[in-house]
């Protein structure tokens, strides 16, 4: 036998005991050729294109799952940012979103990303209408995800967009108040948004991409946790990094295999593997638990940023070796509600909002799935976005904000989203106002690229 029994058992252990899975196979579809002079025609073109390209996505993913014994948790679709398809009214854009929702339902995917606008350097008329349409759209549709890019390292930060997003997030929470503000879980504000990200809610099919492409997001915090635990308390940090790297290699190879198989069977180009460690609320599938296994009493205490930096870098090194095409967000995710260990750390008082912000400077993807009090002013949310965008812009990396001003809740209360979105305690924020700063508006200039300290 060319493969040893030990290796086979290692793979089986990863899959069965350590929750190893492929988190998402995302089919990116360009909608450029759907444009039409009238809205109805556009919608029927979009519907036809998505349903014909993605018709076999779910069956193919299920075939691969069965043959290789690898669970593929989500099958998803990303499309060209809808704001690029023309200057429609807010109602028009909501109508397009309904078309996306229906097409997604027909082909059996649980999320479709691309109700998006790229406004890092200013707005077009169409983009303003799309932003206006976000709260209603996320309330009325079930599967549509929205993202807005408000900053890039090349352009700086569009503070008018940042301020607008503060209000849009509040409104989205209000429009889905009956469901704990779940609309906000489908809305991401980005700095340096990647064009080939397979993960929701921030996935869209970038303007530089081709007709259609298969992108794969791997997972595997449970596997990395297992490895760190097995090394014991005496292994030094170099050894730790080395083992994490090797494990990441194996996880990524699996993602690459699934991506290539899916690409071949769908007759669509293979895009990238996203090397993110994506946690789930399942016990043992947590990023926080990895950091704790490294020797921190609780995630969030001093040393957390360093531990996370080590983890993130080792994952990237192993992954980059395993796949020729790496892209998307590629880093450890630290979504609070989706990670049982993070939730535990927040409720025990070890992990604060400010520490989370610090952690985002060394990993992807940002302040993610954090519930904040419902009476948070929109200017404070805008300021949170501005801080996060600044970290991304200065460090030339992707950052994002996905916060949920939980309707009717105050700090310490709990929100329940259910499923992979999990549950989380509402986190306390700084109560001093940022309004004077964010209300100034304008564009924060792009940062200098030399003098790099």
């Amino acid at each position, binding site marked *: *036998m*060319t*493969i040893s*029994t*030990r*290796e*086979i*058992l*290692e*793979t*089986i*252990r990863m899959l*069965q005991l350590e929750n190893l899975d492929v988190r998402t196979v995302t089919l990116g579809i360009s909608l450029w*050729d759907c444009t039409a002079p009238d809205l109805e025609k556009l919608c029927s073109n979009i519907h036809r294109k998505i349903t014909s390209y993605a018709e076999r996505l779910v069956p193919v993913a299920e075939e691969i799952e*069965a*043959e*290789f*014994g*690898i669970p593929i948790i989500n099958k998803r679709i990303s499309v060209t940012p809808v704001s690029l398809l023309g200057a429609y009214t807010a109602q028009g854009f909501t109508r397009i979103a309904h078309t996306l929702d229906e097409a997604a339902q027909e082909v059996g995917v649980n999320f479709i990303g691309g109700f998006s606008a790229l406004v890092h350097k200013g707005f077009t008329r169409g983009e303003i209408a799309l932003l206006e349409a976000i709260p209603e759209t996320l309330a009325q549709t079930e599967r549509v995800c929205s993202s807005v890019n408000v900053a890039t390292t090349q352009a700086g930060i569009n503070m008018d967009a940042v301020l607008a997003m503060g209000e849009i997030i509040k409104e989205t929470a209000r429009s889905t108040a009956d469901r704990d503000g779940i609309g906000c879980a489908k809305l991401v504000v980005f700095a340096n948004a990647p064009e080939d990200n397979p993960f929701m809610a921030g996935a869209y099919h970038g303007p530089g991409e*081709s*007709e*259609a*492409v298969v992108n794969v997001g791997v997972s595997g915090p449970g596997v990395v946790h297992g490895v760190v635990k097995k090394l014991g308390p005496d292994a030094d940090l170099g050894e730790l990094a080395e083992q994490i790297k090797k494990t990441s290699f*194996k996880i990524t*190879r*699996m993602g*690459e*295999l699934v991506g290539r198989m899916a*690409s*071949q*069977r*769908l*007759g*669509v*180009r*293979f895009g990238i593997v996203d090397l993110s460690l994506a946690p789930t609320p399942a016990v043992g599938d947590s990023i926080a638990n990895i950091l704790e296994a490294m020797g921190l009493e609780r995630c969030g205490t001093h040393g957390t940023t360093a531990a996370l930096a080590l983890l993130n870098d080792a994952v990237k090194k192993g992954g980059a070796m395993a796949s020729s095409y790496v892209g998307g967000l590629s880093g450890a995710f630290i979504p609070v509600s989706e990670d049982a260990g993070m939730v535990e750390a927040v409720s025990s008082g070890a992990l604060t909002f400010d520490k989370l912000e610090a952690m985002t400077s060394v990993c992807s993807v940002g302040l993610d799935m954090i519930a904040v009090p419902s009476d948070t002013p929109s200017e404070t949310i805008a300021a949170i976005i501005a801080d996060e965008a600044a970290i991304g812009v200065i460090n030339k990396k992707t950052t994002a904000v996905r916060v949920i001003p939980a309707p009717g809740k105050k700090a310490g209360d709990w929100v329940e989203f259910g499923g992979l979105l999990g549950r989380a305690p509402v986190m306390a924020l700084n109560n001093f106002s940022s309004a004077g700063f964010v209300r100034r508006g304008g564009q924060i200039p792009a940062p200098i690229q030399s003098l790099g300290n």
Partner: protein
Amino acid sequence: MQTIITVDNIARYRRGNTICIPERAIVTSDARAWARGKGLALQVQKMDRPSREQPPLTLAKENLETPEEENTPVRVVVSVVGRDKVGIIAGVSQVLAQHNVNILDISQTTMQDLFAMIMLVDIAGCSESFETLKKKLENRGDELGVDIKAQREEIFKYMHRI
């Protein structure tokens, strides 16, 4: 300029089961993937450009399906994990033999005080589909009180070999 062939226009170059591409044409990787997905071969031919007289070929649906045989797994790893008892190997081999599956290699060990048996089998001559065989093995596992999985060999190769 050289001809650029993308997914949008590749169907125009199709002649039966091959894609006849003009010399020096640029074929995007999307277009290549499309052809591969449909099981069409690419062939470079001396021709100036897609002749205008020839109408774009309509895509006959039945010709577009990928040939079945290509994707049928051949070597499969059957793993059995559970409490050791009499008759596990016999029970599993019986299912395999019934469906004309050849056992290439077999080994056993223990994993955290559990019995673990690994079989490498060739299912090229299998009388049932891979899915049915998988189901039958799982059912047999339930009868024997062990966990039986069948997975294509590539997953293990890909993960542990460069």
